[in-house]
């Protein structure tokens, strides 16, 4: 429901008017010292819940960031359940539950990571917490063909009652069981500011390109897009998330490509909910689903 962003898009039409170009640039900066990055998620799906520990690196470093091994990682909740996480043998730095397990709604989850990241012989403790909301019942979803700028699309229309009060949502789509947008920079999020406490109907949550237009797209764009074919099974998973998690995703998306001189503010560090001097995030989400079959247009 990136309504505004969609409209801003028309402004970029201007780009054919102004001859803007790009050129590679060499930026030299002092490098910041390494900090621990913690990224952990608890979902309501029955899966291995994981926490990843890595070290930060200079921004333009050509080597990948190093994973951090040998930490003790624990997730607990406010009802007394505790998961001791085990570092994966084949993937150092990734700490996982022993078995697939579901996070439970209406609980606050606590993360505790202990490790000697600064190698001074004393273990530091990093903590974070996140509340898992109850799921939002989605009434239904409909896939509707439409066209725009000589291209055909399918709108994903979602029918759901949005509860009163400030809420934040994270949603993702599965096409024939395949999850799309699994990178933070592509996550779909929205707050309810524009439609607080109302029944949402006939508003498009996403535009999928129609497979019949495949040839109209540049190779680069086509590679990342998910084209739909009549008969495809599309599922939406919608989760209410905390304000902190919403802001984290939104800030990651803002900062991913650097500044936007017209619509963006000055470059600012992405905020974390982890206490103890690390970067990254510990979040929770609890999705509810609805599905639809792509019709013949």
């Amino acid at each position, binding site marked *: 429901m990136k*309504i*505004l962003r*969609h*409209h801003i898009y*028309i*402004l970029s*039409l*201007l780009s054919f*008017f*102004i*001859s*803007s*170009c*790009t*050129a*590679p*640039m060499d930026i030299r*900066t*002092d490098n*910041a010292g390494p*900090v621990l*990055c913690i990224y952990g998620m608890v979902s309501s799906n029955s899966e291995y819940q994981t926490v*990843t520990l*890595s070290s*930060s690196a*200079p*921004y*333009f*470093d050509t080597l*990948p*960031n190093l994973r951090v091994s040998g930490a003790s990682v624990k997730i607990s909740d406010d009802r007394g359940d505790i998961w001791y996480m085990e570092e994966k043998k084949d993937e150092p730095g990734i700490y996982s539950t022993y078995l697939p397990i579901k996070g439970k709604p209406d609980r606050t989850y606590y993360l505790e990571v202990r490790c000697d990241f600064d190698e001074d012989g004393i273990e530091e403790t990093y903590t974070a917490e996140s509340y898992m909301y109850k799921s939002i019942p989605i009434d239904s979803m409909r896939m*509707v063909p*439409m066209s*725009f700028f*000589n291209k055909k699309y399918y*709108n994903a*229309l979602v029918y759901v009652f949005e509860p009163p009060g400030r809420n934040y949502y994270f949603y993702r789509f599965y096409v024939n069981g395949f999850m799309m947008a699994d990178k*933070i*920079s592509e996550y779909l999020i929205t707050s309810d500011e*524009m439609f607080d406490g109302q029944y*949402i109907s*006939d*508003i498009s949550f996403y535009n999928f390109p129609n497979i019949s237009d495949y040839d109209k797209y540049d190779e680069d764009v086509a590679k990342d897009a998910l084209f739909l074919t009549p008969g495809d099974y599309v599922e939406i998973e919608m989760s209410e998330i905390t304000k902190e998690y919403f802001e984290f995703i*939104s*800030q990651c998306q*803002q900062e*991913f*490509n*650097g*500044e936007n*001189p*017209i*619509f*963006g*503010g*000055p*470059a*600012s*560090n*992405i905020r974390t909910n982890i206490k103890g001097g690390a970067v990254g995030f510990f979040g929770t989400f609890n999705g509810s689903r609805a599905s639809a079959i792509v019709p013949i247009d």
Partner: protein
Amino acid sequence: MLIRIMLIICLLLFVGSINAQEREMIIHGRISDAATGETLEGAAIYSESASKGTSSNHKGEYRLSLTPGRHTVTISYVGYTSLKEDITVEKNAKKDFRLSGNVELSEIVVTSSPTYDKVRAPQLGNDKLSSLEIKRLPAMLGEVDVIKAIQLLPGVQSTSDGGSGFSVRGSAPDQNLILFDNSTIYNASHLLGVFSVFNNDVISGIDLYKGDIPVKYGGRLASLLDIRTKNNMPERFSMTGGLGLISSRLTIESPLDSKTSILLGGRRSYADLFLKMTDEYKNNSLYFYDLNGKIIHRFSSKDRLELSAYLGKDMFKAETQEFNYKNTALSAIYSHNFSSDFYSKLSVNYAAYDYGIYSGMQNYEMSLDAAITDYSVNADFSNYLSDLWNINYGASATFHRFKPELVRQPNINDYKVDNNSALEYSLYISNEQKFSEKFTLKYGVRFTSFSNIGKGISYCYDDNYEVTDSVMYKKGDIYNTYYAWEPRIAFVWRTGKNSSVKGSLVHNEQFIQLANNSAAGSPMDIWFSAGRNIKPQKTDMVSAGYFRNFGNDMYETSAEVYYKYMTNVIDFADHSNLMLNKYLDAEVRTGTGRAYGLEVMVKKTRGMLTGFMNYTISRSERTIAEINNGKTYLAPFDKTHCFNIAANLELTPKHMLSATWVYATGMPTTYPVGRFEINGQYFPIYSDRNEYRKPDYQRLDLSYTFTPKPDSGKRYKGEWVFSVFNAYARKNPWTISYDQKDGGTPYAEMVYLFGVLPSVTYNFKF
């Protein structure tokens, strides 16, 4: 404290100036063009024997006090033959002068004030440019642009490459008051900043006051840009126009009867006409236009009415999507001269800016509208009693109506950021005292009351900027008032016939500001007012300068230094959301700022080669508790060194070459110094705010003007202007972006807007 001291000084001076002086008589009148009757602004009149002079105001009127007896006065004006006349002064008298134009410069309508005025006036940080000077500068894509010209002046920085935003002496672009025939222009840009809204053909000239703003004006911290349309009484019908690559212009001026004249000007871009010819873009629109109209009626030699209107619009339309924004400015000015010493002016103004976004796209239908509207009434009086009592005073009242975004979408309720209003009253008085031929003092004070008035809503926030409460106010309820005393004082001490030392001390306050934290700004930035949560921004500035002319005023030089200190200065929280935000106040962070610098200017006003050269060294910084961990950081417009050259070489009346060259230190920026990884993507960890700088900025623009028949006796005159923007194809970064191939190393890319841009324009006049 400083304000109080300044107020006391002003008061003392006012009282203390009741002082005996040798009786002088006043000679006054109008200086005009002998051929067309057009009044000449800034023409010089000088008495050798009394070594006294003055210059004509924007109505061509001058006033000179002389001791009784015989005097030889010289009247001069750039592009006109100087006139020498003997006059006998016995009593206060009216005397008009008419000057004949030079053949080769007959196209000059108005030029800048005479050079010695700059030395003599008790005014610092003031730059004037005439319409002709602006026109002679090489223009981007041939579009002559007032604001691009301003950006070449010392102490003025462009805030983004090719943009219409400008920063004066280290201040934010919204701290400039832009007046177009006395009406505020809230967004002076077309095409998202590429061009400004002022059609140079209808303009007589501009005045930029960099901080030492006349007390008559207020409401902004950094500067006043006063742009006036032509104000003369044409003797015959004339038409001026031009055809360019981007837009075409047409302006007509004509007398309607012996007392009434009319000016109509229009400009429109026509890129969309070409778009319509293509299949892919045939349903698209992309245009901007400006319309100016002005009627002047003289009831008598003492009474005059001016009605002026401006309407400018930008339209971007792509199939079912539309975005447009427009400025409207209307004014009516009635002036009456009670006597040759006592002028009055009454004006009513309306200024509005609004924008809209509309979508008819299936399942994305929506509309968004936002606006700001001002209604104001002003009364100004100017009373010349003696050299010691040259008093200006007046009052104004302005009603501001802020209508932030209203979003309508089918199937769900409207989303509305609450409207609010404010009432601003001001009184001012100033006096210019000439204690001797050497020393003149100007001082004054402006008093403003700014009230938030219902219907409106005010939110209360806790220490974490979360809303705790809200209060609704009924229509007409005044729920918050700020009072401001703005004293301003300046002196000039003439150290010789052609040189002077000046100093000034000013205090300015600002009550409304722009919600913008991006580098270039956008037409969707909204204005919001001070209120319960946001205090007025304040500036104290001290400046001093040395002015000297050489070679019989052929060279005009100046060096000015300034230091200013700002309080309640506004910036926005990290990652703030300034659009569609009911709780905008919660995104505002305030602190202090300071800026200081040195500006050196050399201007050559006559001869084959004319132009100017200036150098500015400056610094501007901010300290705001919740930004950059409270550490002082550079303002985004801080450019340490800035060097500008603008030169015109008139080889013959047929051929003229012009060039501008700009060099500036790169703008401050925040670079990533580290990165963290999540699911194979890298996210930046930044340096301190504005710790680094972008590459230096450089640009050379050239133009060649060819006038086929400059000496032709015919009324029709045409000229070709060939120009090249960014002649040596310097890649100046507009923005720096980062990208990463899947799982690969991040890399930086600069986006630059302009390569070499050649253009051709044809201008005509008859």
